[in-house]
């Protein structure tokens, strides 16, 4: 027997929450890959801690998304059903977070980009019309701030470090930059969720994010690559080839042994 996939409500507020929850969940999977493989044991623990922070945020937000589904007349799904029983096309994470973890420079640059975005997002969500989400944001914003500081520190150390580390950080920036644009790409989910005062339009966070990002990139003796027309589309469910592998590993147990616990 295998567990059938679930379909999730297209309601904009639900979709908005899935974007946040899934982005945290998938980035956590990528960070957890470092467990036992980080360059030093202290960083190993730090990355695992951050993965666990993100899992905690994903759990809270997915739980709330499932409740909202039910409140809007849809079916109720709990956090586990949402994480383990959705197909790839129903995941709403940014493509940026599903890209392979790469080397330490890629991991740190991505963490910096995502954490500084999430920090801004959680700050705004503290005044969400959804009091549950506002509560989650109040706790998460402190975690995001730490993740951002930790990653920013490494971006500067490596970017402004040895020839080797600078070359790797530059490669990381060039490789990830095209995927950053998706974060701030406006669409109807963004518009409708903002109209319902669930949270800000992500597009409205672009300027502040960019100013902060650019100042750290400058301190790391790097320069932002030119913007390109390419747009990734993970937020609307069209993913890169990498997400399927993550889900296969993440969902395998629940799909093979439905409801399995230990």
């Amino acid at each position, binding site marked *: 027997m295998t567990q059938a996939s679930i379909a999730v409500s297209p309601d904009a507020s639900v979709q908005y929450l899935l974007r946040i929850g899934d982005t945290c969940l998938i980035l956590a999977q990528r960070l957890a890959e470092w467990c036992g493989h980080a360059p030093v044991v*202290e*960083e190993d*623990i*730090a990355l695992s801690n951050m993965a666990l922070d993100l899992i905690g945020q994903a759990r809270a937000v997915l739980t709330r998304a499932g409740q909202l589904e039910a409140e809007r007349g849809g079916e109720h799904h709990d956090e586990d059903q949402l994480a383990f029983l959705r197909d790839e096309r129903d995941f709403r994470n940014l493509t940026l977070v599903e890209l392979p973890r790469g080397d330490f420079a890629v991991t740190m640059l991505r963490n910096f980009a995502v954490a500084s975005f999430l920090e801004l997002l959680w700050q705004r969500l503290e005044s969400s019309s959804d009091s549950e989400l506002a509560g989650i944001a109040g706790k998460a914003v402190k975690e995001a701030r*730490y993740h951002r*500081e*930790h990653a920013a*520190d490494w971006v500067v*150390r490596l970017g402004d470090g040895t020839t080797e580390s600078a070359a790797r950080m530059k490669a990381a920036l060039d490789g990830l930059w095209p995927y950053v644009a998706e974060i701030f790409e406006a669409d109807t989910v963004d518009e409708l969720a903002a109209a319902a005062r669930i949270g800000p339009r992500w597009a409205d966070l672009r300027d502040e994010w960019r100013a902060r990002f650019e100042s750290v990139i400058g301190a790391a003796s790097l320069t932002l690559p030119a913007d390109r027309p390419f747009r990734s589309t993970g937020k609307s469910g069209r993913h890169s080839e990498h997400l399927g592998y993550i889900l296969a590993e993440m969902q395998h147990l629940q799909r093979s042994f439905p409801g399995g616990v230990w």
Partner: protein
Amino acid sequence: MSAAPSPNEWPLWEVFVRSKAGLDHKHCGSLHAADAPMAIQLARDVYTRRQEGTSVWVVRSDQITASDPGDKAAYFDPMADKVYRHPTFYELPKSLDHM
């Protein structure tokens, strides 16, 4: 803990955590880090992840001067039989329970 660490290895730092306001910072372990800000950051992850702390100190291990274990007898043993140096002969009021 050698005096001159290899150039390819981060120096060792001793970590002190204050568990709550009013208590002393207590030594809780050590870690490797490239510099002080990194040591503070990593100490947060390695030693305070279960809400152990409200404040962290780090100090380079090679900055600590320790007493020689060989001097232990000369330094500390003579205190053993000088009970009059301990304030154990006072009756404390019952309301002071944590002395």
